[in-house]
């Protein structure tokens, strides 16, 4: 098992898939000559040339639609949207074309595009560069949404996304590109559906995805060390569809659930996981499920404001403990 960074894992997946299939192409702003803002496509331009590694104009809806159209006839575009904030501009082609074409053509056409984009809050990038849009993509029928929490997933999810017949949105994170982790040396394809138990536990389940998985893991350590609470951590690497069975399995075991999301609460991952728990295993609950979310504000630039706008490990611990202090249901 080689240690590599998140961006290196994404780059490796690109490279392998482009070698495997001449119709796999990469496109996006500054991904070619410049090698990509986060280096995810570094060196590919030199290796595969301008026809397959395409520096696009600043035309998000246009080049996303272009990738979708190319995918109609067998091309497998991996589209990088430099920051998820710019995806607001491309939602028309993603929602109206990519996600609906299979259905409205009665199965004749499909749009096997991969759209990758960093979708978290980094450091002081301000309101227009700090949106978290996973909730928007999860609401679009016909689109798959995955979000890697480590280099192994970043590699394996992109590999499978490229091969899959469906359009897949991959929600990455600006703060994770330099994260190190193990990636198997042998080629592999990560499942696009399901969830992963990142830590076994008995007392409460902490649900996270992408960066928040790491907050959950750190919180779990503190909960064990300082509060004797044994938390299970579930990594929801597939946000659409969500792994109903995996969610139920864990809650049926721990009887308590905390969903940790980097985004604001309204109509988000936390709400959807809570809804699934209510629908699938309400009677397993010993306490109300709760969500730890960002404040419902555009993200401020100033550091002290930004810090409190986004959830942190301390909050996860503290909010989780309320489940044990609060009166039991029966």
């Amino acid at each position: 098992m080689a240690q590599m960074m998140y961006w290196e894992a994404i780059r490796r997946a690109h490279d392998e898939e482009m070698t495997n299939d001449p119709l796999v192409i990469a496109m996006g702003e500054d991904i070619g000559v410049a090698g990509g803002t986060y280096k995810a496509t570094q060196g590919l331009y030199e290796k595969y040339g301008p026809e397959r590694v395409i520096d696009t104009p600043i035309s998000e809806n246009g080049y996303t639609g272009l990738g979708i159209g190319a995918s109609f006839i067998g091309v497998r575009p991996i589209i990088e949207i430099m920051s998820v904030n710019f995806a607001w501009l491309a939602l028309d082609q993603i929602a109206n074309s990519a996600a609906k074409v299979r259905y409205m053509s009665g199965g004749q056409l499909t749009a096997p595009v991969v759209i990758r984009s960093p979708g978290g809050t980094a450091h002081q990038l301000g309101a227009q560069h700090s949106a978290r849009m996973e909730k928007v993509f999860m609401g679009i029928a016909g689109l798959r949404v995955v979000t890697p929490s480590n280099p192994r997933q970043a590699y394996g999810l992109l590999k499978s996304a490229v091969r899959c017949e469906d359009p897949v949105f991959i929600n990455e994170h600006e703060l994770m590109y330099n994260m190190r982790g193990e990636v198997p040396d042998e080629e592999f394809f990560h499942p696009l559906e399901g969830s992963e138990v990142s830590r076994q536990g008995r007392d409460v389940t902490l649900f996270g995805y992408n960066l928040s998985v790491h907050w959950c893991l750190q919180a779990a350590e503190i909960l064990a060390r300082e509060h004797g609470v044994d938390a299970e951590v579930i990594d929801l690497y597939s946000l659409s569809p969500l792994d109903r069975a995996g969610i139920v399995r864990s809650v049926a075991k721990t009887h308590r659930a905390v969903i940790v999301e980097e985004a604001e609460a309204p109509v988000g991952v936390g709400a959807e996981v809570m809804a699934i728990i209510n629908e699938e295993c309400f009677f397993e609950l010993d306490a109300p499920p709760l969500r730890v979310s960002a404040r419902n504000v555009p993200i401020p630039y100033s550091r002290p404001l930004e810090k409190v706008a986004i959830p942190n490990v301390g909050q996860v611990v503290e909010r989780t403990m309320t489940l044990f202090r609060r009166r039991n249901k029966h």
Partner: protein
Amino acid sequence: MNVMPGYVSQGARQDGYRPLSVADRKRLLREMLFARRFEERCYEAYVERKIGGFLHLYSGQEACAHGVLEAARPGHDYVITGYRDHIHAIKCGSDPRAVMAELYGKEAGVSRGRGGSMHIFDVAHRFMGGYALVGGPFPLAVGIAKGIKLKGGDEISICFLGDAANNQGTFHESLNMAKVWELPALFVCENNLYGIGTRIDRSTAVLDQYKRAAAYNIPGIQVDGQDIEAVHKAASAAVEHVRSGQGPYFLELQTYRYRGHSMSDSNAYRSKDEEKKWLKRDPITILRNRLIEENELSLDEFKTMDREIIDHIENDIVRFAEESALPSAQDVDKYVLAENDPWVRGKGEKA
């Protein structure tokens, strides 16, 4: 503004053009007449509530799709358009019965009844679909052109859209990319002077649409869209330009729709005078009269042709649509995602 066609710019090579033979012109007359009768029959079916949703008819614009696609290779070249799409699909080779069945929402429809009038798809004939968002097909068409270039085929990608669609940002982004990457895309603008009830001069700073292509270094030309021979000649040069690897091309056809924008539109915003002027330039009548003048056709032959077409539509096409089955409600979840795609389960080692 001058609402009548006429002005034709330079821009496309006209040399080596092989004019249409009499046989071709007779066939095209029949095809256009069929298109007209097909659309008018859809109108009736809509009034009878056999067809639902939004219905946009092509009556008046027949020479555009037929003239352009006659100059291309329907079924081989990729074609994409908006919601006014029945006739483009049929000219690409779609079975009119399957198109009508689609409008009836039947399982035997081209799109299995899932799409309806605005979403005719027939990938077997490389008709890549009708789309309901104005401007949506521009980037898709350019993407198909990119795919053609990557795969090294000799197909071209043809995008038919209206005049008002050119005000959408996708027009700008798509034409720029098509030129920067020199892609085999032919943009056909069917300029019928209106976007629903808004006349072009009230929404658009430049009335001659082909001129807008110059902002992307894309050659463009403006042609009388009611004269199929003029359309065919200009389109032949345009198709040759694109197919020979010289990059994208923009073809503006000046035309007019006879009916309202869709069934819910009364045309109140158009002067009867303007409508009369255009009716005088009916594409079917123009070609018919030419053939009659040349003694290649008699009025009786034409009337017989018309009767045959009407019977064919009624007894074959409409009957098929009427008699075929509706989709079953159990299938509502089909076609959202690929069915058991192996890659969804992954492969090889995993934690």
